[in-house]
């Protein structure tokens, strides 16, 4: 197996893993109505999306660096969730 094939396989597994984690957090959000979990749900979905975009583009495409903005967005969502958690008494 070439390096590229191994990487594609791992990336595929990671995409699935992120989506499953997103599903768990989605369920937690429905159970607890905790907005933080909604943010984690979105964050993991965006992480999955980022990996899909990276796969679609390959590592030498000129737009590849911009794909990492998606990762930034994912972590940004988590930060927004944390900030929201610490701000007011609302759920």
């Amino acid at each position, binding site marked *: 197996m070439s390096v590229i094939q191994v990487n594609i396989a791992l*990336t595929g597994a*990671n995409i699935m*893993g*992120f989506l499953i984690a997103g599903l768990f957090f989605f369920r937690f959000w429905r159970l607890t109505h905790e907005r933080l979990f909604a943010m984690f749900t979105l964050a993991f979905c965006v992480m999955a999306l980022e990996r899909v975009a990276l796969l679609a583009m390959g590592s030498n495409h000129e737009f590849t660096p911009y794909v990492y903005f998606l990762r930034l967005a994912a*972590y940004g969502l*988590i*930060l927004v969730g*944390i900030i929201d958690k610490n701000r007011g008494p609302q759920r």
Partner: protein
Amino acid sequence: MAALIYILCALTSGACTVLLLRRYWHSRVRMLFWSALAFLAFALSNVLLFIDLIVLPQWDLTILRSLATSSGILLLLYGLIITTTKP
């Protein structure tokens, strides 16, 4: 600019790790432990991304990064699964 993104991602994962570990230290809820480790692995994968693209561009760390991410996902899923099932 790109470097800033990678560092920010690593720092956010690191912050999640710290917050989860802090809570774990108080409450001993196992899910927090596994989640904390997961975010540590994600932080590692972001650090490796920084190293791969900026510090050592002549090397290809892609598989290592993917493995770090996979480890994080496995740790996270383990924690999430034990949370939602009772022994």
